[in-house]
């Protein structure tokens, strides 16, 4: 059988089984095993590929960033961040909608999980928004869109997976994700202000109320400083920064804010233990899929086609890849998509001399957009489920917000200087800068 047919068979089987209700990880493994049987590769060696997919030290950061989100939510620490967001911005037009976005930006700084963000917002602010008369479709759409920022603003689990599998600096990806994250956040705020519901006008918080809210939220807001500070100073790897954040929450935040929570800690540890295994077994399966795809020369064919259309033009290559990932992100989860398509991304990045961190941020942003696009917009699905709205209604409300994401993606493609500005300032080696041999500072390509 030709390699092209085997690639088609593998993709077809995966989608067919997936849409028939087989869990994603098992659908991927089944499709890989079936196709492997038609090649000289031994099925036992595919087990090694499964294992290799998760035997990557950087992936240890994933459970820690999930644990941070779980602990913060379960111990009710997040309510203080919501209170601060309300004190800062609750008085403007569409106050609660603005609070959703601002809180998501804060929460994105402590947890890398969009799912946790959707759960927190749907449970805490969602009911208040309904009481104030916001359209339920708009509530679900806004919560889902705002939650995607968790994948852009550090620490981001998608960035960890991208960095770990593509051998790209995770610290660089974290820093480069800040600008697109802020762009999406500001875009959502502007959209809510001009096009969203008005909500109930509230009076501006007094200085006393604001400082009380800031004091209340000060302990959890140290977490981004620990994570990014530890990475930037070289004290911690991203994994160790995740552990440091967990230890800080357990030893400082929770005893100060909610001492009674410790009774629930064993349950939350078990729950997080279960939660982290789900993306990681999918990563392992996708890694085997990606290996088989590379064996069948799929990446070479796709990157060859893209290169034949775009030549070595980095902008055109990125636009084509964005188009590919928008389609891919509509059907499969972001993490397997990153791993399966990593060989193609690496090939094109190298051929067109694109900065790997720049490419990584554009891909992560595109896949974050995929979290709100049908049929597999997992954030939108979760938000519509939690807020009790039909998916179609939430989807209609989210369509105009897509403009914000498309604008952010185009900005990131066309203005790499803005994306790479923060890494160049704080982690120059991560974006290919090297020390000036004849003096201070760095020389950046």
């Amino acid at each position, binding site marked *: 059988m030709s390699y092209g047919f085997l690639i088609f068979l593998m993709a077809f089987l995966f989608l067919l089984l*997936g849409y028939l209700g087989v869990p994603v990880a098992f659908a991927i493994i*089944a499709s890989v095993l079936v196709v492997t049987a038609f090649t000289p590769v031994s099925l036992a060696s595919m*087990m090694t590929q499964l294992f290799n997919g998760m*035997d990557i030290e950087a992936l240890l950061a994933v459970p820690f960033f999930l644990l941070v989100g779980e602990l913060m939510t379960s111990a009710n620490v997040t309510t203080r961040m919501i209170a601060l967001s309300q004190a800062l911005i609750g008085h403007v037009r569409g106050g609660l909608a603005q609070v959703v976005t601002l809180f998501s930006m804060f929460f994105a700084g402590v947890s890398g999980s969009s799912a946790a963000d959707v759960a927190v917002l749907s449970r805490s602010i969602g009911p208040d928004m309904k009481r104030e008369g916001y359209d339920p479709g708009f509530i679900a759409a806004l919560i889902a869109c705002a939650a995607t920022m968790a994948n852009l603003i550090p620490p981001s689990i998608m960035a960890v997976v991208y960095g770990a599998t593509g051998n790209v600096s995770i610290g660089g990806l974290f820093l480069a994700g800040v600008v697109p994250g802020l762009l999406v956040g500001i875009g959502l705020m502007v959209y809510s202000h001009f096009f969203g519901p008005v909500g109930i006008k509230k009076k501006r918080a007094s200085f006393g109320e604001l400082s009380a809210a800031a004091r209340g939220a000060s302990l959890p807001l140290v977490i981004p400083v620990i994570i990014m500070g530890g990475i930037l100073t070289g004290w911690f790897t991203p994994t160790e920064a995740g*552990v440091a954040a967990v230890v800080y929450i357990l030893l400082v935040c929770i005893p100060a804010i909610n001492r009674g929570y410790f009774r629930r800690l064993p349950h939350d540890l*078990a729950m*997080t233990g279960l939660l*982290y295994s789900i*993306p990681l077994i999918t990563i392992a399966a996708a890694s085997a899929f990606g290996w088989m795809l590379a064996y069948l020369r799929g990446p070479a064919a796709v990157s060859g086609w893209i290169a034949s259309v775009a030549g070595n033009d980095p902008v055109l290559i990125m636009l084509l890849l964005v188009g590919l990932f928008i389609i891919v992100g509509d059907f*499969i989860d972001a993490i397997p998509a990153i791993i399966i398509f990593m060989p193609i991304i690496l090939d094109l990045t190298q051929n067109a001399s694109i900065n790997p961190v720049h490419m990584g941020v554009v891909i992560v942003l595109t896949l974050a957009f995929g979290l709100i696009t049908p049929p597999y917009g997992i954030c939108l699905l979760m938000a519509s489920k939690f807020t009790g709205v039909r998916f179609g209604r939430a989807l209609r409300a989210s369509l105009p917000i897509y403009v914000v994401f498309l604008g952010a993606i185009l900005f990131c493609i066309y203005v790499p200087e803005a994306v790479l500005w923060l890494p160049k300032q704080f982690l120059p080696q991560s974006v290919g800068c090297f020390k000036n041999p004849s003096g201070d500072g760095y020389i950046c390509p």
Partner: protein
Amino acid sequence: MILCGVAITGFTVSVTCDIVTRLLRSPWLWLQEVTMTFFIYGVFIGTAAATRRNDHLYLAAVTESMSGRKRLALETFSRLVVLGVAFCLVWFGYLNVLDGFKSLRMPSMTPLASLYAGIPLCGALVALFTIEQLVNGWKNGFEARVT
């Protein structure tokens, strides 16, 4: 579930000890092996637990809108696929374990088979839980399952 909690607690403690011993300038190199062991076994055991609880990632929940024989057929089909994969994990994972005795982990010189053993273990647990789901589903209907 309890084992998942043990695994995450285990590698949280071992990474913390790793940082502390490094800061004290006497790093315990074997801690990294302990960390990866907890991490990898945690993934495999968690995968089995998630199978039992139907907590995995799904592309679509087509069966939830169905009922009767159509649903029974699709739910049975998806579990048979999972069961097939689980048996492959057990058998080919076992062959891989045998192969893993030829390679050693540094610095403890433990055979890599000790980590590879997680794959057939995961397969066996997934098979067990899937059979349990099939039996319960056929007896009580898949609509009644706890998700």
